[in-house]
């Protein structure tokens, strides 16, 4: 039993390392003059995709062994759900890779998958027992389908990002290249969250607050924003700099705000560090590496992944969700925040597809839309799960 759990965590770790190495090989493909010509395979591309597939299989081992150990599909808490999204993103990448053979996609898709897996790994990893409403086969049918759809849709973001780095003018500062830089900064902030969480966790930092209602709230990072009116229990820990506003709702909201602030601090430090190395906007530094790549092909990948992902999302995020909700909660649709955000995602990609029908929306405009689409997906996974409480809240 516990044996299986350790197999499962080793497998996840293996997958993580393999994705990391595969990224380096995909990185090597851009130096290769032939990359733009798809008919010829570059050796580093072949190694990259092979490692990716092995990593993916390792993650499948993680998934199955944890499923057996826990007796239910490991998609029932934040750790399981988010790492699974990383896995479906890799799956979608492999799928699209074999259609378009575009190696540069791996250079961007794998780091984003790594970021997502690292993010998920910051949440409690123990296997949780299922509450009655989750005890249904529809749990895994629904969640697995939605995640696959989100993974495929995330590829459109990856392609959109490549497109923007490739095409946005970097000669002088413009609104567009600042926005692009902000997108890159936010990705770095995602990494910042994992880094800062790991640092404080390795220090075993803990500060306990007593709220006026007599509840205890423990912080695992020094409190910058504390709970309103709360007392620090051990006085040798850092006093909060300010109190979290009370309208910031949800369970343990002040602590979440605090984590967010720390992530931004860590993200800013990391980004500053990267800038010291690049000595240019990151976008401007990366742009010349991509010169060999055909923007049409990247645009096509971006659109195609929405075209493939949209029906899957409809099936998993709306139809399967409705069937399950009908059985478990007696209504197939209840305007729960999670459901509403699935609807928003669906509306958004429907708008994307409609806009693509007119010519002016190809290329750069749809690349921005793909970025917004991914922001909506991440919002659904992070903010809706952790902040806007609802039936599905994993917090």
């Amino acid at each position, binding site marked *: 039993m516990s044996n299986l759990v350790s197999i499962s965590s080793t497998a996840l770790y293996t997958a993580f390392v393999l994705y990391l190495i595969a990224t380096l090989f995909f990185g090597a493909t851009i130096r290769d003059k032939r990359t733009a010509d798809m008919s010829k395979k570059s050796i580093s591309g072949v190694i990259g995709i092979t490692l990716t597939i092995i990593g993916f299989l390792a993650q499948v081992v993680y998934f199955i062994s944890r499923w057996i150990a826990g007796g239910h599909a490991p998609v029932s808490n934040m750790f399981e759900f988010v790492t699974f999204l990383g896995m479906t993103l890799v799956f979608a990448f492999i799928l699209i890779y074999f259609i378009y053979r575009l190696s540069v996609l791996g250079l961007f898709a794998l780091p984003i998958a790594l970021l997502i897996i690292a993010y998920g790994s910051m949440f409690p990893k123990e296997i949780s027992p299922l*509450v009655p409403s989750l005890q249904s086969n529809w749990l895994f049918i629904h969640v697995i389908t939605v995640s696959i759809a989100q993974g495929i849709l995330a590829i459109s973001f990856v392609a959109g990002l490549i497109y923007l780095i490739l095409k946005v003018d970097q000669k002088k500062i413009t609104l567009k290249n600042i926005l692009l830089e902000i997108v890159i900064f936010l990705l770095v902030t995602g990494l910042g969250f994992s880094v800062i969480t790991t640092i404080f966790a390795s220090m075993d930092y803990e500060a306990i607050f007593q709220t006026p209602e007599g509840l205890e709230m423990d912080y695992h990072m020094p409190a910058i924003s504390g709970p309103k009116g709360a007392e620090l229990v051990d006085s040798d820990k850092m006093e909060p700099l300010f109190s979290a506003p*009370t309208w910031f709702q949800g369970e343990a909201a002040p602590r979440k705000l605090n984590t967010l602030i720390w992530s931004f601090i860590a993200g800013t430090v990391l980004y500053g560090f990267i800038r010291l190395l690049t000595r240019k906007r990151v976008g401007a530094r990366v742009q010349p590496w991509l010169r060999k790549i055909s923007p049409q092909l990247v645009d096509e990948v971006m659109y195609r992944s929405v075209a493939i992902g949209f029906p899957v999302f409809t099936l998993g995020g709306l139809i399967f969700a409705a069937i399950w909700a009908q059985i478990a909660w007696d209504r197939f649709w209840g305007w729960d925040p999670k459901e509403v955000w699935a609807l928003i995602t669906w*509306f958004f990609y429907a708008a994307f597809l409609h806009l693509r029908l007119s010519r002016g929306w190809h290329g750069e405009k749809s690349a921005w839309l793909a970025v917004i689409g991914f922001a909506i997906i991440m919002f659904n996974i992070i903010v809706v799960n952790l902040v806007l409480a609802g039936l599905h809240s994993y917090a």
Partner: protein
Amino acid sequence: MSVDHIKCECGHVNPEGTVLCEACGKPVAKNQDIDGNNKKKLLNMRYEGSARRSQTYNRSIVDKTWNFFSSVRNGVILILIALVASGVGTIFPQAMYIPEEAPNRDPAFYYEDAFGILGKIYYQLGFHELYSSWWYMILIALIGVSLVICSLDRFVPLHRALKMQKPKRHYTFLSRQRLFGETENVSDEDRQQVIKKLKKSRYKITEDNGYVLAEKNRFSRWGPYVNHIGLIIILLAAILRMTPLLFMDEYVWVREGEEKVIPGTDNEYFIENKKFTVDFHDENDERFKEAIENQGDVESNFQTDVVISKVKEGSVVGQSDSMETVTEDSIWMNHPLKFDGITLYQSGYQENEFSDMTFKIYETDDEDQESLGEVTIDLDTPEDTYKTDSGFEVEVTKYYPEYELKNGEPRSISQYPRDPAFVFEVLGPDQEEAEMSFVGIGKNIDATGDNKYKLGIQDFNVRYVSGITVRKDYTLPFFIIGAAIFLFGVIQGMYWQHRRVWIHPEGDNLVLAAHTNKNWFGLKKDIDKAIEGTSIKMPIDQEEAEEKKAMEEDEEA
């Protein structure tokens, strides 16, 4: 032939408003601004240049309304407004999701209490019931109208244009396709081979005098229309659901051992709660040990064992044999019970009701509170007086199932024994006059201050109240059909693409042009495969070429 019709040089007669001749594709000079072809090298092929009503008439108010709704741009704007509005509804919980434990669940107070001034504004704007507000429903209805009109506007002309198309196309039409190429001196063998290969890739070949059209997956063009029909069915089903005839939603609380009418069934069906059980995950289960330690006990199941009975047809209610059992079963989450078109769901439970309480009598002065006699009161059917074997007589003069003191007056909030309190008159075997005392949970008041005997709570039992949702929903099949059609339509439109390749002789040259509605990469692969080993050149992607040129010019600048 009406004067409005347009005759093309190929002989085909097109309806007014046509942009590209339905048969040969030659641009109709005066209509080139409609699809923006006058500004571009490449033709806009989205609707095959067919004559759409919305692009042709714009005089009467009907025309203008029609044109408003048939614009995809306006449709997208409506979708985006609905999207933002839906998001606004998730900022604070909707009224139905106000948490149980909120101090005041009345929306008029809750939003301000919980979220301050923003909450108050949210409530005053009606956002606490956003999804059932009139304006949200109108917005969704407008999307419905828009997609119906939009589909009608395009379906008929598009269908006509695809049916009328001839293999032989005008040279201008071909040269203004995205994929276009000319090769000199192609042998007939090579030409035949390309056609054969395309056929092998499941293209349908039509030939007219050496002019060839290879076409594939035309059906995928109808995908959007199919999916929009699915959406319309779903919207209609949502309207049907507002009628009580097809949809019923009720809720009933049933105590253990109690039998109740199932609401919404005209007193025809009854539900009895035989037993209610709550189970928790085993804290010693090795798998979950850590999680349970961290987050506390986790329920594994709660369920009600029920008996459903109904009034026999033609019988008089109250007669002993007037009822018959419909079914006996258990209901738990993810396992509803269905009978006669009604579905019962286990929704929730309360464990805050007392079923009985036992009081002991002791002397006020006795520090050890030694029991002199006990009475047990069944809180469903409290009796007026109880006698103990030891000779005490306890009279229940007042019973408050859920006690509260309001404006100095004792009263009961509800009829459910959630916080019972009593006024007793106790007469000891050695007394002449009964003494009055008030007893509740945590309260024991002696009205005069010199009572000899006191009553104390010795023991009690609580019972569960099971919350059951009662549903009758005849609209489900419509939703299922609508969703299935929608999904079918999107798959039809997304996973296949309408590809066409034209192979024409042009003097000594062979022209090869191609079009697809999406997935150009796939189309190029098809062509690549077909021309392999022949002298025919790969057609040029004119869009890509143009963009490359622009980029190079940009770099030089």
